[in-house]
C-alpha cells in the first residue's frame, strides 16, 4: 500500500494563495478528511495530489517518490468527483472498464474485476444501464466503483456525498467508511460537512484560508481545538474571555479570571500569568441547576434563562450571564427550566479547554 506525504505544498492562483505551506503525512490504510469552510483550499489540495493542478511550491510523495510534474494519468490514483463525472455516453460497465482498458487489463480479468466491484457496491445488475438511468445514490456508488476497480494507490474523494439527500448521505458515510477499511486503501476525503468528517475519518485536517489549523482524530479536534476558528467551525461552542491567574502544567490545570468569576480548566501546558486567553466549553458539557453547586471543584456561573428550545434528544437553552455573556447549554430533555428562571451553569474543569490567542 501507499503512504502519502505532502511537504510544504503551496498553490497560488495569481494573487490568491489557495493553499499555503501544507504539511501532512498520511499513513497506509488511513482515511484523512480535509475539512474547512468553502474556499479554504480543500479541492485545490486534492487536485494537486491528483495532478490536475501543478503546485507553486512543495512536494507530494507517494511512497517517497515525488509525483509533482507527473501527469494525472500516470499517478495511479482513484478519484471520485462531486458530480460523479460518469461518462454519459458509456454504460456503467463501459465506465468501469475505462480505467482497466487504460491499464491494458486482459478482457477476461476485466470482466471478473468489474463483476467483483459491482458486487462490492451492491449494484450487480445495473451494468448495462446508462448513468442517466441511475438514481443519485446509485451513480455515486458507480463513481466510487469506477475509482476503486483500478486498484489505485490512493483514493481521492471531493465531497462525494454532497449531492445526495440527507438520509442517503448518512447511510453512504458508513458505506464508504467500511469499504475503505475493507480494502485498506489510503484515502483523502474532502468535505465541508463536519459530521461527515467525524464519522468517516481516522484523522481530520482542519483548514482555513489555505492553512492547516489542526490535524487530529475527531474527538481530539472536537474537545481540544487549537484555534477559535476550529472551535467555532466544529460544533457549538461557548467562549469565555479571561486572563490567566495561574497555570500549572504539573497539575494539568489552569485558573482563569473572567467577568463571571474564576474558572478552572484542564490544560496541560504552562501559560504566563496575566495572558489573555479564551476558555471554551461545549454546550452539552454544561448542566443547569437551580441552586449553586456544593463542591468547590466545579465551575459555576449564575445566569437567567433567555430562550429555550426543544430538540427531542436534548433541550437547548440560551443563558444570559453577567457582562453580556451568553451561554449555550444543552441539557437533558426532561430537566426543564422556564424562560426567566435564575439558574446556575456548572461544568467540570476537565470539560473545558483553553485557546491561547
Amino acid at each position, binding site marked *: 500500500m501507499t503512504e502519502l506525504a505532502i511537504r510544504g505544498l503551496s498553490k497560488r492562483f495569481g494573487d490568491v494563495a489557495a493553499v499555503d505551506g501544507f504539511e501532512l503525512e498520511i499513513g497506509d490504510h488511513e482515511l484523512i478528511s480535509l475539512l474547512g469552510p468553502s474556499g479554504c483550499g480543500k479541492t485545490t489540495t486534492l487536485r494537486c495530489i*491528483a*495532478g*490536475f493542478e501543478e503546485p507553486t511550491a512543495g512536494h507530494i510523495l507517494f511512497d517517497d517518490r515525488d509525483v509533482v510534474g507527473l*501527469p*494525472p*494519468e*500516470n499517478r*495511479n*490514483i*482513484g*478519484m471520485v*468527483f*462531486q*458530480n460523479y*463525472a*460518469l*461518462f*454519459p*455516453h458509456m454504460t456503467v460497465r463501459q465506465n468501469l472498464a*475505462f*480505467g482497466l482498458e*487504460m*491499464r491494458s487489463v486482459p478482457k477476461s480479468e476485466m470482466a471478473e474485476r468489474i463483476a467483483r466491484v459491482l458486487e462490492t457496491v451492491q449494484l450487480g445488475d445495473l451494468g448495462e444501464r446508462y448513468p442517466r438511468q441511475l438514481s443519485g445514490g446509485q451513480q455515486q456508488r458507480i463513481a466510487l466503483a*469506477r*475509482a476503486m476497480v*483500478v486498484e489505485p494507490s490512493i483514493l*481521492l474523494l471531493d465531497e462525494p456525498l454532497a449531492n445526495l439527500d440527507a438520509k442517503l448521505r448518512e447511510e453512504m458515510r458508513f458505506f464508504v467508511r467500511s469499504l475503505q477499511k475493507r480494502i485498506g486503501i489510503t484515502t483523502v476525503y474532502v468535505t465541508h460537512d463536519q459530521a461527515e468528517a467525524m464519522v468517516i475519518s481516522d484523522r481530520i485536517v482542519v483548514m482555513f484560508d489555505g492553512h492547516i489549523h489542526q490535524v487530529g482524530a475527531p474527538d481530539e479536534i472536537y474537545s481540544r481545538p487549537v484555534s477559535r476558528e476550529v472551535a467555532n467551525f466544529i460544533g457549538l461552542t461557548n467562549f469565555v474571555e479571561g486572563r490567566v491567574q495561574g497555570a500549572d502544567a504539573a497539575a494539568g490545570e489552569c485558573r482563569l479570571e473572567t467577568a463571571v468569576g474564576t474558572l478552572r480548566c484542564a490544560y496541560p501546558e504552562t501559560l504566563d500569568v496575566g495572558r489573555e486567553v479564551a476558555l471554551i466549553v461545549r454546550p452539552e458539557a454544561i448542566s443547569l441547576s437551580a441552586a449553586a453547586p456544593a463542591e468547590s471543584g466545579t465551575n459555576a456561573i449564575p445566569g437567567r434563562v433567555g430562550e429555550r428550545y426543544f430538540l427531542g434528544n436534548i433541550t437547548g437553552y440560551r443563558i444570559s450571564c453577567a457582562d453580556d455573556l451568553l451561554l449555550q447549554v444543552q441539557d437533558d430533555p426532561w430537566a426543564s427550566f422556564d424562560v426567566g428562571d435564575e439558574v446556575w451553569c456548572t461544568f467540570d474543569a476537565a470539560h473545558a479547554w483553553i485557546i491561547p490567542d
Partner: protein
Amino acid sequence: MTTAPDPSPIPNESAAARGRLQRKAGHVLYLAVVVLVYVYLLTPLVIVVLASVNAGEFLTFPPQGFSLRWYVAFFESEAFMGSLFFSLRVAFFATIISTALGVTVALYVVRFAGRWRERLRLFILLPLLLPEILTAIALLFFYYNAEALLRTLGIEVASGVFRNSVLGLLIGHVLITLPFVFLGISASLYNFDHSLEEAARSLGASRLTTFRRVTLPIIKPGIIAGALLAFIISFDLFNISLLLKGIGVATLPIQLFDYVRWEYDPTAAAVATVSIVITVIAILVTEKLVGLRSLRF
C-alpha cells in the same frame, strides 16, 4: 380638483363578465396573430411546392391538375443539373473545411485562449457580423488586386486563380460558414463538464486518449449540428456566389436567380422544390442525429 372616490376593490357582476369577455377576445386575437404569422412564414414554401407539381404555366386557384413536367424540364436542363451538382460539391467541401477549422479553433478558444478568448471569439464571428454583400464585394476587389500583387512580386499565378475559379468561391463559402460551425462546437465545449476529462485522466487516460474517448463523443452533436448547418448555409449562399462566380459556373441559387428574373415558367419551382427537399433532408438528418435544438445561430 377633487380626487375620484376609490373604486370598489370587488368589481360588480356585469363588469366582471365584461372583463372575462375582453380577456377572451384579447386571447383569441393573440392566437390569431400567432397563427397568421406561421401561415405567412410557410406560405411561400408551400406555394413553391404546389407550383412545381401544377400542370399549368401559372399557379392558379384551384390548381390545374398534377404533373411532373416541370421536374422533367429541370432534369433535362443541363444548366440546372450542372449547377445543382456544382452547388452540392461546393457545399460539401466548404463543410469539410469549415468543420475542420471550426473544431480546432473552437477547442483553442474555449480551452487555451486565456485572456484572448473574447477577442478571438469576436474575430472568428466577424464574417457573421459583417454584411455578406460587403464581404463579397471586398473579396471581389481583393482577388483582382491579389493577382496583380502576386504577379508584381514575381510569383507566377494563373489568371483568375481566385477570381473565376472554384477556389475563390470556396474560400468565400468557408468564411461565411465557419462562424456557424464555430458557434455550435464552442457551445457544446462550454457546456462540457470538465470533470469528465479529469475523471478519464485520473483513470489513466492520456490527453489524446481522453479527447478521443471522452471529449469527442460528447461534443459530437455540436460538431454534426454545426457541419449540417454549414452545409445548408453554403448550399443556399447567394451574395458571395453572385459576385465571385466564375465564368460559366454558377451555383444553384445563382442559376435560379438568373432564371426567375427573366422567365416565369415553373421549372424554377421544380428547382426550388428540389433545393427545399435537400435542405429538409439535411434538417431531418440533424434532428435524427442530434435534435434540432442543437442548431445555434
